């Protein structure tokens, strides 16, 4: 029996509180104010007091590079007035949020802690775009990819080009991913972009890294998100609708894209998903709503394939048949995803889980509520796939 299975059997963990800032440009807020807004909302949602928290975990990719601030976890604990509560920062590039959540899950499942706050925060818009682009290259193999001038859009463009070559995906279908996510974002008051776009808008936007254009890329956002975790057996003290974390699994792969077995497959996603389905005892067909890591349009298509929702090379069909909209057979990124809801790197993994919790509680703003959703799956990726985390949530 694997350690993960054993821990899962030891104690079930529930999400009992959620809170998030809008993602976007917060000119008036730094790391500490963003974290404050999200965590106060989560603590109030859980109907607890801050001092009840026994552990604080913060997902943050690059505070040092974006705003000169390391030691982010203690900063957060201090600003929340919660010293001497222990606080830990977790970093796994764009998967920092989901890895932080998984660490919180392990802390509660192990029995060492009852009430744990897991937050994610990134403050990205205080620097010039060229610098932000350079900071994000730290998520790939810096010495063997970034050093030669590769950018993040460039990495996903290399995937997209090869994928289109091997599987004949059309440029138009790729654009449909962004169109769908903007449509969902238009119903999400917390989304960075709340406007609808068309395939023509995508295809006429500026080339960033061929074949990817501006509207294939998620934005750089400021934002924070926070959840409160508790043992499932005590969850009803804090909420009427506890959402159980049925699985939180993680896998690793090569940091560089060029060393992958297949650059069109994220093996870490495949591995994390298989472990998650086994642990939660569900299969893809049981999942009602999905939040996947669509940092670029091509990434959403890879995610659906690697998570087992269709065969490799067939992801485009889902967009041809418009299945991924709310109301379709496979609602994906109902909050707008990274593309429209925004990508505040360290906060994204937590934001995804919050969207699922709202979906499963049935409290999403009308038009994007997936009716009767019971099981949700979140998928968060670090870099170009060196870290992947899959979280499966269920309403009881």
């Amino acid at each position, binding site marked *: 029996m694997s350690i993960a299975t054993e821990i899962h059997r030891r104690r079930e963990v529930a999400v009992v509180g959620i809170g998030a800032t809008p993602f976007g440009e917060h000119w008036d807020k730094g790391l500490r104010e963003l974290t404050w807004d999200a965590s106060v909302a989560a603590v109030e949602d859980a109907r607890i007091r801050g001092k009840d928290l026994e552990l604080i975990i913060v997902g943050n990719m690059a505070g040092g590079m974006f705003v000169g601030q390391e030691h982010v976890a203690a900063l957060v604990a201090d600003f929340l007035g919660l010293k001497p509560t222990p606080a830990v920062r977790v970093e796994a590039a764009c998967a920092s949020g989901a890895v932080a959540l998984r660490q919180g899950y392990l802390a509660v499942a192990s029995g060492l802690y009852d009430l744990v706050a897991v937050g994610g925060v990134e403050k990205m818009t205080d620097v*010039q*775009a*060229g*610098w932000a*682009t*350079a900071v994000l*290259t730290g998520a790939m193999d810096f*010495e*063997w*990819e*970034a*050093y*030669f*001038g*590769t*950018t993040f*859009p*460039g990495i996903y*463009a*290399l*995937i997209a*080009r*090869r994928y289109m*070559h091997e599987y004949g995906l059309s440029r138009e279908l790729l654009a449909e991913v962004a169109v769908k996510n903007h449509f969902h974002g238009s119903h999400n008051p917390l989304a960075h972009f709340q406007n609808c776009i068309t395939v023509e808008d995508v295809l006429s936007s*500026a*080339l*960033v*890294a*061929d*074949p*990817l254009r501006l509207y294939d890329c998620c934005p750089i956002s400021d934002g924070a998100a926070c959840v409160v975790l508790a043992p499932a057996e005590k969850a009803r003290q804090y909420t009427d609708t506890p959402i159980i974390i049925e699985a939180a699994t993680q896998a690793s792969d090569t940091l*560089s*894209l*060029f*060393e992958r077995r297949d*650059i069109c497959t994220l093996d870490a996603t495949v591995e994390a998903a298989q472990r998650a389905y086994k642990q939660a005892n569900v299969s893809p067909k049981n999942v009602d709503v999905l939040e996947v890591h669509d940092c670029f349009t091509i990434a959403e298509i890879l995610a659906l394939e690697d998570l087992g929702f269709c065969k490799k090379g067939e992801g485009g069909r889902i967009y041809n048949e418009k299945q991924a909209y709310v109301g379709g057979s496979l609602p994906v990124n109902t909050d707008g995803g990274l593309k429209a809801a925004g990508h505040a790197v360290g906060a994204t993994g937590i934001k995804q889980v919050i969207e699922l919790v709202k979906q499963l509680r049935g409290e999403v703003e009308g038009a994007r509520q997936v009716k009767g959703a019971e099981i949700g799956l979140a998928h968060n990726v670090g870099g170009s796939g060196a870290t992947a985390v899959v979280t499966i949530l269920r309403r009881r």
Partner: protein
Amino acid sequence: MSIYAVPFHWRRYKERYRLLGTKCEKCGSTFFPLRRICPNCRREGKPVTIELSGKGKVYSFTVIRTPPEGFEVFAPYIVGVIELNKGPRLTSQIVDCSPEEVQIGMPVEVCFRKLRALGKDGIICYGFKFRPVDELGKVEKKA
């Protein structure tokens, strides 16, 4: 990005200047950059340092139009994943051809180029880039 001392760049000259990689003599896998353990064979593997083929084919490519800080002077530039003959893949810029000319499967060979200069007072970084060759492996002459 000009914050790193000379050794940061210098210690990678074996790979960046000479294209050295690792071959596992047990399973035959090749790796770039250098590795200390074969991830397939682990302790049973026999990793040795070899000189990789400087010839290969374009496996995938893109054209970087929004460069990171430090690469502005080169933009737009082509970045590719190159599959080396008998060897592993690596990432490199592809030069001496226009974005319209490059395609998947195109034969290329290694050349030694300036990667970038780190500011006015910083050092100049050198390393490999790849350029197109014809079917016979010769560099195509431009008119």
